[in-house]
């Protein structure tokens, strides 16, 4: 089933267009790594603060950088789609790809939970105050999931069969 979807996708005009330009792939890969650095660097800083590091810095000050983490995510979403649409066959049967998507989902749901349920509690936290356990769990889960996304992404050619 996945293979027939991949075969269909590969035959679309968009997929053909992506494969028409030989330099598009390495350019998108470079952008994917630049986006990764922004996303993991900034999100990781917030996660460490949620875990209780750098307590003298307010959480909201670090959150002000989050739009740039989202820029990194947007870059990686677009370039990731280029990879998937360009050569779908190397992902649909790739266990590392599903590992990456799973932890992407965990990281996303975790971030949504933080923003919708815990976000308002950030302001009640005084400077220098330790973070509550709920913050620590969210921070640890976020850090772990993003590192897992990075791990499975990097392992796509080795556990799976892409390049």
């Amino acid at each position: 089933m996945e293979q027939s979807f991949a075969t269909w996708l590969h035959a679309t005009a968009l997929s053909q267009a992506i494969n028409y330009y030989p330099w598009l792939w390495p350019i998108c890969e470079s952008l994917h790594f630049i986006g990764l650095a922004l996303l993991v660097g900034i999100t990781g800083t917030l996660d460490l603060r949620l875990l209780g590091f750098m307590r003298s810095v307010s959480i909201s000050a670090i959150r002000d950088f989050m739009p740039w983490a989202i820029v990194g995510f947007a870059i990686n979403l677009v370039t990731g789609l280029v990879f998937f649409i360009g050569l779908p066959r190397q992902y649909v049967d790739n266990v590392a790809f599903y590992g990456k998507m799973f932890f992407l989902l965990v990281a996303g749901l975790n971030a949504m939970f933080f923003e919708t349920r815990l976000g308002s509690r950030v302001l009640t936290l005084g400077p220098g105050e330790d973070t509550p356990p709920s913050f620590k769990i969210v921070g640890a889960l976020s850090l772990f999931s993003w590192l897992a996304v990075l791990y499975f992404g990097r392992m796509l050619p080795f556990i799976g069969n892409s390049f």
Partner: protein
Amino acid sequence: MEFLASIEASPLAEWIRLSPSLWAYPGILTFHTLGLAILVGANAVVDLRLLGVGKGLPLSKLDSFFPAMWLGFAINAISGVLLFISDATNKATQPIFYVKLGLIAVALVIAGVMRRMIGEATSDPAALSPRARTLATVSLVLWAAAITAGRFMAYLNNEPPEVI
């Protein structure tokens, strides 16, 4: 060249290149990516702050990002050397490899200059003027270029040596 070939033939280099273990080439490559994220990510936070993002973050607190950068750099220096020896004769003859090293060297010097400027500016934030913004912009561009050069090493490979 003979020296590079002998490095490449060493047991460690052969293990990295040929072992089916995920700890060999794939694992080292993963650490190289992790180090990149720590080094460039932490430097990007400093750069963005100097460009005016997140003014709630006091300049004096930027100091804690520099040890993270050195950690990321250490991870990548070690993993980079290991990746290099596994393919020394090829990598040493790739011009793009030296472009990458040059870009990293300049970016690191700029990071050092920025740290000193931030140190001086914590007593007088007004001292942090246009020059800091310029350096921050150049830093972001250099890291993006270094990442791109690194990525292109896989594509601008040397032709296999001609058999005479």
